[in-house]
């Protein structure tokens, strides 16, 4: 079968804007259905996956993923009529009665969450597509399927933890023999994801978007300062669950919609709310640290309990909270599990893949294989790159290398010389990380490199560390892990070896950790070739690897976007495949 999975709920934010006009723009993100994406399976094989934001260029877009679907079909040479199933990673139908509690919820169900609302979008963007081919998979099951059916394990514990699915904040499954069996679920009223996002908002960042920045801020703070506050906020129960009374304080429809009472409690009992433009102080750093410590503790509590109850020693994770690399690192180091797999598109974009996998698995089509490095997005060929270059030929100089080895040799020389370069090749990544196909690279040992990149391109908060990419063969030399430890998705934090921390200032966080990506010749061949070349020029098969975009912009997709971003920033060199591009001297 040809199955397209999709995520996102287009009408969600517009509905909120209509019914709650005049909110701060950041408050509109307290809503469901961001990060639209599409994923195509053909006879159970993953053919293509891409987030809609990369197509429509609206970060975290929740729009119906028309562009993403179009790309998936093009990749496989299919037409809309060839799709046997279109599967949405939400299923609100079982909760129809629950949404009849009040007129606004009733309208929310009808206009936003219902099958009819989805079908109207399908009718708009895929005219004539038969309604009977449109299916639904519940949100957490879609997340769970995205992890289990790409884990390569026949049996494992699968934990989904996010802000919320239809009504849940966490769900625990046992994956076995190609099936997922739910064994525990927690209400969204006890969602640690929502709590984390509310504190993110309270600290002046964006709900459902900037949680990773709080994670990045946390190591600068003192986790003891607000420990007792967060101990009171998240109560750990003996059955592995947790209870978060703070999220149940909201009594009116308005309070519930925007967590007004919860936020007032944070203002009154924690610290006053920070505006985005305010300076970040010790108080904010300490709140971030205390919150992160509590998340680490709660994740360990949940995972350890169900690991013990089931006796399973392998853990597969998905859901937005599973993007928290610090908590993942604590889990890995805890020794509770022999192996941990975090599905690299753990956020809602990944539910497009999961929804499709769940339907394909039910049809017996899925061979459970470990997800490769997720280069599953668009590839733009030499003709497209040449056309893009012709448009700017007066502004650039291009040097064409005969092959990858030559291009890597030159890139390695530039990196060793302290240059910052953009590295664009092959198919785009699925999920939030740039893993070597849409990356900005530099030498992690170069003094001031973090500040240089921040000022020339990223314009991002100075406290946030950059991540390293290192060859699989050298990972244990620089990082405190066993030899050949595979961490290919940049989603788990490990310790930088003490003796190397001072020499790797750009990628070592203040607590001595790094969000490492391992690169192997088997799974990420071109990038591996580059890292080997870098090893010959710097003595380390390692680069600083950050996503190729500027603040607020999705990662670049096309060669045109790559060139525009290059020319609009201070990045010194751009490699488009084996072509080196630099600005023409004026």
């Amino acid at each position, binding site marked *: 079968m040809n199955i397209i999975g999709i995520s996102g709920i287009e009408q969600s934010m517009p509905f909120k804007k209509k019914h709650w006009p005049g909110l701060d723009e950041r408050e509109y993100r307290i809503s469901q259905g961001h990060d639209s994406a599409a994923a195509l399976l053909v006879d159970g094989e993953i053919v293509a996956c891409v987030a809609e934001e990369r197509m429509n260029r609206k970060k975290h877009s929740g729009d119906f993923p028309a562009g993403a679907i179009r790309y998936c079909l093009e990749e496989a040479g299919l037409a809309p009529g060839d799709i046997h199933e279109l599967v949405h990673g939400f299923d609100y139908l079982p909760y*129809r*009665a*629950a949404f009849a509690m*009040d007129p606004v919820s009733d309208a929310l169900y009808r206009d936003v969450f219902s099958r009819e609302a989805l079908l109207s979008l399908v009718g708009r963007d895929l005219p004539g597509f038969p309604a009977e081919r449109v299916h639904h998979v519940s949100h957490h099951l879609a997340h769970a399927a995205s992890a289990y059916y790409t884990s390569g394990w026949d049996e494992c514990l699968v934990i989904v933890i996010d802000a919320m699915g239809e009504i849940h904040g966490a769900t625990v499954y046992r994956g076995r023999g190609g099936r997922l069996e739910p064994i525990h679920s927690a*209400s*969204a*009223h006890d969602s640690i994801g929502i709590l984390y996002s509310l504190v993110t908002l309270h600290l002046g960042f964006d709900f459902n978007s900037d949680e990773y920045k709080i994670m990045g801020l946390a190591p600068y703070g003192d986790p003891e300062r607000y420990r007792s506050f967060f101990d009171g906020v998240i109560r750990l129960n003996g059955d592995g669950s947790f209870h978060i*009374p703070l999220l149940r304080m909201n009594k*009116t429809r308005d309070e519930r919609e925007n967590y007004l009472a919860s936020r007032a409690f944070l203002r009154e009992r924690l610290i006053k709310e920070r505006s985005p433009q305010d300076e970040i102080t010790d108080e904010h750093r300490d709140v971030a640290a205390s919150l992160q410590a509590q998340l680490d503790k709660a994740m360990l509590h949940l995972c350890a309990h169900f690991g013990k109850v089931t006796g399973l020693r392998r853990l597969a994770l998905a859901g937005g909270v599973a993007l928290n690399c610090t908590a993942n690192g604590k889990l890995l180091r805890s020794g509770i599990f022999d192996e941990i797999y975090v599905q690299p598109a753990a956020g809602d974009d990944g539910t497009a893949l999961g929804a499709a996998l769940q339907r394909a698995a039910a049809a017996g089509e899925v061979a459970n294989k470990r997800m490769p490095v997720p280069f599953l997005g668009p590839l733009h060929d030499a003709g497209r790159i040449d056309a893009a270059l012709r448009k700017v030929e007066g502004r650039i100089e291009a040097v064409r290398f005969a092959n990858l080895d030559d291009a890597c040799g030159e890139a390695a020389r530039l990196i060793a010389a302290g240059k910052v370069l953009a590295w664009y090749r092959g198919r785009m990544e699925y999920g939030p990380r740039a893993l070597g196909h849409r990356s900005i690279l530099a030498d992690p040992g170069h003094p001031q490199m973090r500040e240089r990149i921040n000022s020339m391109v990223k314009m991002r908060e100075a406290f946030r560390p950059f991540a390293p990419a290192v060859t699989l063969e050298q990972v244990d030399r620089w990082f405190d892990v066993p030899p050949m430890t595979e961490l290919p998705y940049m989603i788990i934090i490990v310790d930088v070896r003490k003796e190397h921390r001072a020499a790797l200032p750009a990628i070592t966080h203040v607590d001595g950790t790094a969000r490492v990506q391992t690169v192997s010749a088997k799974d990420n061949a071109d990038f591996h070739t580059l890292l080997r070349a870098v090893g010959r020029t710097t003595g380390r098969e390692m680069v600083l690897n950050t996503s190729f975009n500027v603040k607020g912009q999705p990662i670049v997709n096309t060669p045109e976007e790559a060139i525009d971003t290059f020319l609009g920033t201070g990045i010194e060199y751009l490699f488009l495949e084996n072509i080196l591009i630099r600005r023409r001297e004026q």
Partner: protein
Amino acid sequence: MSTPTATNGIHDRIRGIFRTKLNVEVPSADVDIIETGLIDSLTFVDLLLHLEQEFGRKISLESLEVDDFRSVSRIAEFLGRPDLPQAPQGS
């Protein structure tokens, strides 16, 4: 037919769920908890789960009538129906 004492016992158990599990204080057994906005859709689903656990009865979200859950009294009446199936073990 339930005796007044038995009814009060069921009422207390239901109000106990509201108070301890859902953080909702229900002023009286006849207050309309939906009309007054005391519970929302998430809390409603939680309520059903806790009722199932407390009373060992299976409540189908897909086929229920919301009116049966408008007050503590109505919930008690609903739970007293002889045709209500038992909840599966461990639910």
